[in-house]
């Protein structure tokens, strides 16, 4: 890495997008979100935090972002399509310090599958490296190499190379460490919308997690995943949401067919840690985030042809997998790789459980949770009888939502 010789004396920097690309397919919102993610890539590796500011009332922000053409009042005129793409000014006291300019005549893209255009996120990460005080690097994996190297992948998962981290931390030190000694991402305020990729963006508004009614909920390696349409949220074991913004289903679960728009149930298989997503009469098996094989029929797990599932969970007390549909459930023996005989049985065995739950999952503590609508029913470890105060509202306890206003409580279901 190379240092420019200047750095910010403060650790909290402000930024604003003053002008947006005129002819790009990217919306202003997407541009803002990509910028925030690009800054976050540097912030998560250092002691720096970034705040987006709104209007130019009073002082301009430290990092002022513009899309400009040709000569634009600095010493680096742009040259149209190709050639120079962008530049940024190193830290300092001058008003232009930290400012970042993109050539408006480039075809700025995000998530382009055909390789057309120039990936705005990749270039923004590079330029913000300059805005923080880094020069160009010759290291092969560095984002600070001067030449455009193509897209760098999902902004939500992007991590700087070691060379870039070393340069940044030389200037600003390391990020405060969590108890797990892992870097964390904190959402910027106000929380921006997730970037919309052209292939998945069309007509799916971001749902409100506080409304509940999830399609599926699963405990995957200690984190609770809440699926709703083509989105999902993740709740860390500490009880903190990874982000209040949902992630896109198909950008995370690699290989999940595009036509699968709803995950009806999900669970992590106890015996091998594989993750199974269910939709319609089929399911898909993932190792980590990668799909293994293709769609499999639910008949493999002992359900009749054409049957679907509302909920699937693995009960640690006996290692068996339970598949719930309506008021009945099947049990599958993972060790023997066959369904147990004598099923389906009536769900009323689980005393107090709601029929047709949105999903069921087992917490890290071993308690079993049934979810339906905006409520949950807890079954203490080793018990198949729900707690007397069930159901409870999900939002405040699980999803960082305000408590429901005092109104009529969710009707209790009759005990079986």
């Amino acid at each position, binding site marked *: 890495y*190379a240092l*420019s*010789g200047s750095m910010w004396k403060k650790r909290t920097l402000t930024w604003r997008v003053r002008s947006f690309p005129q002819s790009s397919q990217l919306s202003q919102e997407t541009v803002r979100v990509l910028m925030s993610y690009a800054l976050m890539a540097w912030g998560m590796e250092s002691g720096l935090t970034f705040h987006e500011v709104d209007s130019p009332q009073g002082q301009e922000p430290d990092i002022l972002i513009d899309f400009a053409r040709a000569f634009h009042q600095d010493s*680096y005129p*742009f040259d149209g399509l*190709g*050639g*120079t*793409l*962008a*530049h*940024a000014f190193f830290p300092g006291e001058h008003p232009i310090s930290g400012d970042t300019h993109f050539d408006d005549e*480039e075809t700025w893209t995000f998530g382009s599958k055909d390789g057309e255009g*120039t990936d705005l996120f990749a*270039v923004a990460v*590079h*330029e913000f490296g*300059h805005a923080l005080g880094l*020069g*160009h690097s*010759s290291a*092969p994996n560095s984002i600070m190499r*001067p*030449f*455009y190297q193509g897209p760098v992948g999902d902004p939500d998962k992007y991590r700087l190379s070691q060379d870039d981290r070393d340069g940044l931390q030389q200037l600003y030190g390391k990020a405060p460490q969590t108890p797990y000694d892992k870097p964390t991402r904190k959402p910027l305020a106000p929380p921006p919308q997730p970037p919309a990729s052209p292939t998945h963006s069309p007509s799916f508004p971001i749902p409100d997690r506080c409304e509940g009614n999830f399609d599926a909920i699963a405990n995957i390696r200690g984190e609770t995943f809440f699926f709703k349409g083509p989105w999902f949220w993740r709740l860390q074991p500490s009880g903190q949401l990874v982000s209040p913004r949902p992630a896109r289903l198909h950008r995370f679960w690699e290989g999940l067919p595009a036509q699968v728009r709803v995950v009806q149930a999900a669970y992590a298989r106890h015996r091998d840690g594989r993750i199974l997503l269910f939709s319609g009469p089929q399911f898909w098996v993932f190792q980590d985030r990668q799909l293994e094989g293709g769609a499999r029929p639910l008949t493999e797990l002992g359900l009749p042809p054409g049957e679907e599932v509302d909920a699937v969970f693995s009960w640690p007390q006996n290692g068996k997998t339970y598949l719930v549909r309506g008021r009945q459930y099947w049990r599958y023996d993972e060790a023997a790789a066959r369904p147990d005989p004598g099923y389906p049985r009536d769900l009323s065995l689980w005393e107090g459980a709601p029929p047709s739950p949105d999903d069921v999952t087992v917490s890290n503590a071993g308690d079993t949770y049934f979810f339906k609508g905006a409520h949950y029913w807890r079954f203490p470890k080793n018990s198949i009888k729900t707690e007397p105060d069930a159901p409870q509202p999900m939002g405040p306890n699980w999803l960082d939502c305000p408590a429901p206003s005092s109104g009529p409580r969710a009707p209790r279901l009759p005990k079986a």
Partner: protein
Amino acid sequence: RAPKPSAQDVSLGVDWLTRYGYLPPPHPAQAQLQSPEKLRDAIKVMQRFAGLPETGRMDPGTVATMHKPRCSLPDVLGVAGLVRRRRR
């Protein structure tokens, strides 16, 4: 032997190497010719920086790299720094 680079390529090279800090900027008050040695050295530094074989010549790989889309800022900041000091 590799074909001799065209005058256009050499001109592009000098311009590119100057813009991105590998060659000192021309002095505004005097015409300046780059010596072949200085030009070769500058090309070698550029090739090293870009991960290309260090031929010191405007070979096709070097010319192609100079045509790649890139950031406007110079790669070698020392030249700019020297200029600032000289001006002061």
